[in-house]
């Protein structure tokens, strides 16, 4: 089996990374800038929060309505809920501290953000979103069983789930957000 993949949902993954920037856009909107009209800047930040997150919600709903479900076999799972904290404090908040009051400062902040966006997009780190945490969802990396049959996938997958833990050798039905990120909704 080939050990490289062609990751699909290119635009969707980009929007999902943008959705993960929501706390930064929220803080920027509150702080404002002297470079632009206050209302225009708030509207732009608002759009950058609403559009990607609305798309993410639409993507989950679409996957659910299409029964785009994959049964994932898990050898064991790693709990990665701290990724959200690391992401916020090590990556987004340093960008927030950059000044936006001169054109060159504003441009450098946008370029820094674009680099983070591109990097997260290329590295498939589109699964981080603080809204999941707010609504009680946790992040797990699912490590597949090693079957060495040339057919079974050996790639680690990310699951966003309300579960507090995942047992070894468990099977999970989850809807596909992207080819490597899956979502399990709260059971009724």
């Amino acid at each position: 089996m080939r050990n490289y993949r062609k990751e699909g949902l290119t635009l969707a993954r980009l929007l999902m990374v943008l959705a993960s920037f929501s706390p930064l856009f929220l803080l920027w909107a509150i702080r404002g800038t002297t470079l632009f009209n206050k209302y225009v800047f708030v509207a732009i930040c608002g759009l950058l929060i609403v559009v990607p997150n609305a798309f993410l919600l639409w993507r989950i709903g679409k996957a659910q309505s299409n029964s785009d479900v994959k049964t994932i076999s898990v050898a064991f799972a790693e709990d990665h809920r701290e990724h959200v904290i690391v992401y916020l404090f090590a990556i987004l908040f340093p960008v927030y501290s950059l000044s936006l009051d001169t054109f060159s400062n504003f441009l450098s902040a946008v370029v820094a953000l674009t680099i983070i966006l591109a990097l997260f997009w290329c590295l498939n780190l589109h699964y981080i979103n603080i809204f999941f945490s707010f609504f009680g969802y946790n992040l797990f990396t699912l490590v597949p069983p090693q079957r060495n049959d040339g057919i079974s996938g050996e790639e680690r997958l990310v699951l966003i789930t309300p579960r507090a833990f995942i047992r070894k050798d468990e099977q999970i039905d989850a809807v596909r957000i992207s080819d490597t990120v899956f979502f399990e909704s709260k059971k009724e």
Partner: protein
Amino acid sequence: MTNTDPRSAIRSIEFGIILKEGEELSYYLVPTDITLKAEFLRMLEQTLSNWQKGVEVAREYDPAEIYPSRVQLELPSDSLLLGNLSELYNAENIPIEASRIRELPKLFAYFCIFRTGNTQNGEKVLAIRKAVQFKGLAKQRLVRWVDDSLHYVEDKFFKLDKEFDIVITPTRVMILNPKSFESIARLDDIILETAGENLVRMGTHVPFIELSSLTEYAKTHKRAARLIASIAARGDLAATSERLFEEQCTRCGVTLVCNDGRFCPAEKHELAFLNVLDRRRYVVSLIEDVHEKYEAASRHGVE
């Protein structure tokens, strides 16, 4: 293992493709929408209905038999003849890569995984179809009726088939198209690889035949390897009578060589020797003093 009705309470349907590059096969899942999933379910129902139509008990697949293109056959799901299919059935977390569907010239087969029951105690049913129409139609030019004139349709289209070739449940394998089964399971490769083991198994059950001379022959002759696989799978091999076997060989014109009290076929009689053991070489005498010798590429027992 239980006797699963493949249509009972299907929990999810996953669609996948098998691409062939040279001799290498690669497997990918491709996401589909709910309308396609409904169509796959209809295909499964059609396959099961066609497989059961007009046959009380399906015959077991025999690798030495030459079948028509469409016939109802079955195999136990733990049969060694499943080869690749067994690995596909047991595979987990097959990677999702929607873009692979664009590699149409490499498309070899497509499959659906139907899951029943719940996640922890559920079972799965694998249905496979060799890509013929699915691949072929994409190369054709299509037209459609627009504003009272015909227009080229520039999109790529796939035409799904009406049924699957093979359905694998936890207990058995249902085959509707034996040629597709042989091709997808890579049966010839399995049979050539296991010919040596099958000869050893035959030798333990029939001690009066010497089979070591056939080992090299079987590695290069697919027909011989298929006959060996068929003979080795017989449950009544140990009851073979030395006297009757020798008489049958004489009647059928198969020359035997005796080595230390054990029979082996003379050179160029290897295939005929195996055909006698597999009940495929026989003599008919309907005219006085005329003994017509035949080989049966296809045969089945009668009452």
